[in-house]
């Protein structure tokens, strides 16, 4: 092995560490933001005692989770009981590596680096595959707790997730047809046209709405959160989990929210493209990279705010209404979207000779 390979590997480790730290911090503050924004919607104050305006609350929560007593139910299957939160968190974190946080920038003293951890051609399929594996965390958690309410909650959660995964995948096919590639970096670069304004949401509004609904159902959030709502099944599949394992499930749910928002930003809202930034700063400079990364984070935070807003506003679906909606309405509409996109694309290509 020569030195350039070793340097590459070290750089990748540094990139992964930075990305994970940033993501975990953002997710921790999303929990705090959710509590405060929900409080604002509901007309009260959220946690604001720890630190200025509650800014140290996530660390207080972390301390509480670490020091809490870890209760393991007696008749549970030990191996699967410990494996389930690990699978859920791993699947949530593994999707992080393919998103482009910014364009190729030249950082002083290091050179030109692309601002994403890994790049391969089937990035979008990889994301879909890893979210498919994340279903096991819920199903195994529900089963291994040896509690019939947990089992029902786990099975309902998994059934909901696999039903809406189909609509999610189908809504992305319109985007793939427009972009002609599964590579997320190329999709973002394709959206740099029209002074950074050629976002796919303008070309695929129906696909975006389907994706949003399917994504909210995938992450088990309101209005689709029956399997884990407190008034329904105690706490669903994570009833019997305490302390650090519950913290892992909690973290996995919020990281899922975050990754789904990042996917929506990358595919539909143009990723790191800030309109007119290329004309002002010039491609490849450090300031352009910085502005692009900030633009990306702003778009993701907008999606997270949308999630929290929906949680404070909408009531939840009943489970059979949820399944009916997913199979009988959303799936045909997604297929209709593919059909329409394909027809319009063929007409446009035959008229103008290119994509």
């Amino acid at each position, binding site marked *: *092995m020569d030195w350039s390979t070793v340097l590459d590997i070290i750089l990748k480790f540094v990139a992964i560490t930075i990305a994970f730290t940033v993501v975990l911090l953002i997710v921790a503050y999303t929990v705090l933001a959710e509590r405060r924004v929900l409080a604002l919607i509901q007309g009260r104050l959220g946690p604001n005692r720890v630190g200025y305006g509650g800014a140290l609350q996530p660390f207080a929560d972390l301390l509480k989770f670490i020091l809490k007593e870890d209760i393991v139910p007696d008749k549970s*299957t030990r*191996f*699967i009981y410990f*494996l389930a939160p690990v699978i859920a968190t791993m699947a949530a974190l593994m999707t992080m590596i393919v998103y482009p946080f910014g364009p190729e920038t030249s950082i002083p003293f290091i050179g030109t680096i692309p601002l994403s951890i890994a790049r*391969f*051609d*089937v990035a979008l*399929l*990889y994301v*879909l*595959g*890893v979210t*498919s*594996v994340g*279903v*096991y965390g819920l*199903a*195994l958690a529900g*089963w291994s707790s040896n509690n019939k309410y947990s*089992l029902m909650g786990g*099975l309902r959660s*998994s*059934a909901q997730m*696999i039903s809406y995964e189909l609509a999610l995948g189908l809504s992305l096919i319109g985007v793939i047809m427009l972009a002609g590639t*599964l590579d997320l970096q190329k999709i973002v670069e394709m959206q740099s046209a029209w002074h950074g304004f050629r976002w796919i949401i303008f070309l695929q509004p129906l696909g975006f709405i389907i994706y949003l609904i399917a994504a909210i159902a995938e992450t088990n959030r309101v209005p689709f959160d029956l399997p884990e709502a407190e008034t329904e099944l105690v706490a669903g599949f994570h009833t019997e989990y305490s302390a650090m394992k519950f913290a892992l499930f909690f973290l996995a749910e919020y990281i899922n929210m975050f990754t789904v928002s990042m996917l929506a930003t990358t595919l539909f809202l143009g990723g790191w493209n800030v309109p007119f930034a290329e004309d002002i700063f010039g491609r490849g400079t450090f300031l352009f990279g910085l502005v692009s990364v900030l633009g990306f984070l702003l778009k993701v935070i907008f999606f997270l705010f949308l999630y929290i807003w929906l949680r404070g506003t909408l009531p939840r679906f009943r489970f059979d209404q949820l399944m009916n909606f997913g199979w009988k309405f959303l799936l045909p509409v997604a297929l209709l979207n593919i059909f329409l996109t394909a027809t319009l694309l063929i007409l446009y290509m035959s008229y103008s000779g290119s994509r």
Partner: protein
Amino acid sequence: MLVLLFILFAGLAIGCAIALVAQRNPLYSAISLIGVFISLACLYVMLAAPFIAAVQVIVYAGAIMVLVVFVIMLLNVEQEERRRSRLGFLVPAAVVLAAVLVAEAAFIIWFVDKSHATPTQNISDTGLTSSIGSALFTKYLLPFEITSILLLMAIVGAMTLARRIKEIPAGAAVVPGAQVLPLHMFDRSVPLSDTRGVEAYGTEEVAEVLDLPDDHDLTKRD
């Protein structure tokens, strides 16, 4: 470096496969099989077939095994008990014959390997999504269309096997999972003290069985 990765993933695959066969609890077998699928997907990536690797994880590990795990959980399958083996003299005979087979296979592999007739792996375009897609829709269009008909047959078959019969025979015992709803809920002329029940899997089914108009709206309670 590639050799190390190959040994890692191959060892993982073989280990999980042996665990699949040796475990008696079917849920542990299912988890070992998921391990086999994921290590095979990593091997496909090493063989420069990223599309097949992603499809393997999505279809096998993410859909088929979820179905198997659901069935295991719903049917509450318990562990196999060990039974006394009645094979007797067959076991040493099997071991000897298996050793002969393995020796033959190893000889063939070693012989072909040494003769330098085997190809080497070059970097090429096969394995990218675009080449699979173009082959699938031009040269192999007929298998593709026949496969879609096969999937339709599978859907119809699975739905037929899982369907429940709607008529309730007279004097039937209550089937686990069915709801027994009071007759008053559907026919308001029947007094509330009438304890007859109708058994079905939902209010729409009951309305069909009893031949009543289904304007039953659960959101209006009276």
